[in-house]
Structure formats: C-alpha cells, structure tokens
C-alpha cells in the first residue's frame, strides 16, 4: 500500500506543473507485445517482426508473459536522456495503462474497473489498477491533461501555419470560439459519463489538480489568441474565458441537438457577450470622464460667476 501511495504521489507530479508528460511507449515494449501476440496467433511460427530488432534476439521460449505488475525499476530513474530499450519509467507505464483504460470508460464509467480492464488489455495483471486511486480520479485527471496537451498542440500548429503565411490570422472572437469548441469536442466520445467525471474533479482532494489543469488550459488559449495584457486585465480575461468554457461545458452535458449545434450557438453568444463587454466598459469609462469634465467646467463657471477666480 505504501508503494502504491508513493507511486501515486509520483504521478501527482505530472499534474502539479504545467508541462504535461506525453505517453511514449518504448520500442522494445511494443516489440515484445507484438511478438507475444504473433506467437499466440501464429501457433509457434517464429517470425522476426521488426527489422530493427536485429540487435537483440527474440526467443519466444525465453519470453515470459508478464503476470505481475512491474515494480519500480531503480535503473530507469538513473537513465536520464538515454532511456535504454528494456527500461520504461513508472510514469510512462501509468500513462499507458490510463490511456488504454479510456477505451473502457463508455462501458464502465470513470472507475477503477475501467483502469483494471485497461491494464488487462495491455497484458498486465488487473492488480496494476492498485497503482491508482480507487475512485477513478487518476483516470479523469489523465484524460483532462491529455486533452489539454492535444489542444495546446493544435493551437501551436495553427500558430505555425499563420507564421508561415499558410493561413489567415483569425479575429479574436472566432479564435476563442474555435479553440473552446475544439476542446469541448474532445469530450464527445465520453459525453454520457462526463457528469460523473465532473463530480470526480470536484472532489476536495482533486480540486487543486483540476483547478491547475483548467487555469493552464485557459492560459494556453489566451496566449495563442495573442493576449499581451500585463495589468489587471490579465485576470479579467481569464475569468471571463473560464466562465465561457465552464458554462458551455454544462450546456453540452444536456444538449441533445444534432452534432451539439445548440452548444456551439450558446458558445457563440457568450463569446459575443464577452467582446461587447469590453467595449461597454470602455464606453462607461469615456462617459464617466466626460461627465467629470462637465462637472469641472460647471464648477469653474460658478467660481467665475461668484468672483472667486479674480485676483486682486
């Protein structure tokens, strides 16, 4: 249990910072998996599936299918840049299990059962699910962080295209609309179980991590939208966009229209409101300044009439 706890805490490190670890399976793992599958399916025919594996001999007789969850590999943490072929870090393994578990979420929900099924589908024991929290928190957080990474990559690609001149720079409201829509569309395969995921994200022990993920996602969107505010507007804009995103997400949960058209219309209206809000604020400010000037003029006039402005 202590080991599971420490492994879980190692996983929290992923969600503390902004950088998201992306899942990168080691070539040898895939080779071993593939060879195991080939061995079982081709009934003893010994084929060498990859040309690149000529450097090591795959002897199907020697290969033991993994029945136990892999324990911590002390040699892995010391590898640094050179992640040697037969070494996969705990984090990478956890990422793989959670990503595989996502396939079972529509059927089993965001639960430890889905994680167990995910582990099983990778050829690991269902006890591997013991590495994670028992209420499916890790699965939800992994999914959210994966979506945020995909969104950041999408926005970065768009930015590159604009810089290379291949695409036009979008106006801010359209950019925000498209970014939020792209991010919300990632929920569509899991939309039936999303209310459960939201309630998990709101659990007290998950709130710091989920808040962190939400704020960094909103910050990414605004950064790529070209926000260069360095005053209090920085906070105002992020608060407004967070409200737009959260309300659109909730509308999406009970949207039954074709391809969620109602949600996108709602999103469009909210973004338009936000845009007009900033121009309204400017109008209020300029009106206020004009009123103050008017009052000052009236005061000076009064002083002139009464004779206070005369110098004797």
């Amino acid at each position: 249990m202590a080991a599971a706890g420490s492994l879980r805490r190692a996983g929290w490190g992923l969600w503390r910072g902004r950088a998201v670890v992306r899942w990168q399976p080691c070539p040898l793992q895939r080779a071993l998996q593939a060879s195991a599958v080939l061995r079982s399916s081709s009934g003893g025919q010994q084929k060498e599936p990859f040309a690149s594996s000529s450097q090591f001999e795959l002897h199907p007789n020697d290969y033991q299918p993994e029945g136990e969850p892999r324990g911590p590999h002390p040699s892995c943490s010391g590898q640094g840049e050179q992640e040697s072929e037969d070494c996969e870090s705990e984090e990478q393994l956890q990422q793989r299990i959670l990503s595989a578990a996502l396939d079972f979420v529509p059927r089993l929900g965001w639960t430890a059962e889905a994680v167990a099924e995910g582990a099983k589908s990778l050829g690991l024991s269902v006890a591997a699910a013991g590495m994670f929290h028992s209420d499916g928190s890790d699965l939800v957080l992994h999914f959210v962080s994966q979506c945020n990474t995909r969104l950041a990559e999408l926005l970065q690609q768009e930015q590159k295209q604009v810089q290379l001149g291949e695409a036009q720079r979008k106006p801010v409201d359209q950019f925000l609309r498209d970014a939020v829509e792209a991010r919300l569309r990632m929920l569509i395969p899991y939309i039936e179980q999303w209310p459960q995921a939201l309630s998990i994200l709101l659990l007290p022990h998950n709130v710091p991590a989920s808040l962190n993920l939400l704020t960094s996602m909103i910050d990414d969107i605004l950064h790529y939208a070209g926000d260069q505010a360095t005053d209090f507007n920085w906070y105002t804009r992020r608060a407004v966009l967070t409200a737009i995103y959260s309300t659109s997400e909730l509308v999406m949960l009970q949207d039954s229209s074709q391809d969620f058209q109602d949600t996108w219309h709602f999103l469009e209206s909210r973004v338009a409101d936000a845009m007009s809000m900033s121009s309204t604020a400017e109008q209020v400010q300029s009106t206020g300044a004009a009123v103050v000037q008017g009052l000052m003029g009236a005061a000076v006039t009064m002083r002139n009439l009464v004779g206070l402005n005369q110098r004797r």
Partner: protein
Amino acid sequence: INKAVVDRIIRVDHAGEYGANRIYAGQMAVLGRSSVGPIIQQMWNQEKAHLKKFNELMVAYRVRPTVLLPFWNVAGFVLGAGSALLGKKGAMACTVAVEESISNHYNNQIRTLVEEDPEKYKELLQTIKQFRDDELEHHDIGLEHDAEAAPLYSVLKTAIQLGCKAAIFLSERI
C-alpha cells in the same frame, strides 16, 4: 530555465517598476511645476522605460502579473503625492528610500540568478544589472538634492523601506 524562479522575479520586478511609476506620478502631480519638476520627470521617464521592458519580459516568459496591481496603483500615487506634500526634500527622501530598497532587491535577484546559472540567464541578468545601476543613479540624485535634510528623514526612510519590503514579499507570492 527554472520557471518558478523566473516567474517570481519578473512578477515582483514588474510590480516594483509599476509602483515606482506611480510614485513619480504622485510626486509630479504636486511638485511638477517646482524647480525639481524636470529632475523628477527625467527619473520618471527612465522608470517608464523599465516598466515597458518588464511588460515585454512578462509576455515573453508568460508570467502572471500580481493581483495587487490596482492596490500598488493607488498606494504608489499616495506615497508619491504624500512625500511631495512634505516639500521637495520630502520627495527626494522618498526617492532615496525607495531606490535604495529596489537596488538591494535587484542585487539579491542578481545573486540568485548567478547562483543558478549565469549562462542560461545572461540576458535577464544584463537587464537587471542595467536597471539596478539606473536605480542607484536615482538614489544618488535624491541625495544630491538634500534628501537627508527632509523633515523626519530617518523615520520616513525606515517606514518607506519597511513598506517596500512588505510589497516585495507580497508581490512575489500573490
């Protein structure tokens, strides 16, 4: 680069330059038409250039500004105007106190960055060193203009420097 360290440094420096701007604005509002007006205006222009640089750095390093900016806006102006109401020497005393605090603060940051990795932070170090030299110049200008002859100089200086320390502590974190 160490994101956490750079984050703090840029946030607090941005807040500091913003506050310094407001202090000089307050002093100009009261003493703008006096004999020290041009000198304060010149120092104010340099602070404006500093603030502009930190605005650019803030966007480049994607640093969050401090929430207390509206508060420093008002507090800085009040401090500037208040010290100026004590007379020209009072304004100069305020300048001396603030610039001394800021120079020490920049020196601390330079030490931190050099301890981390002087090569990685070369540009940032260059900027901070340049700004520290500018602030020391302002400090010396303040002394030249009889800051020490201001009413309650030592009390004023201690109080202002305490306020600066508190502002630095809060802006780094919030």
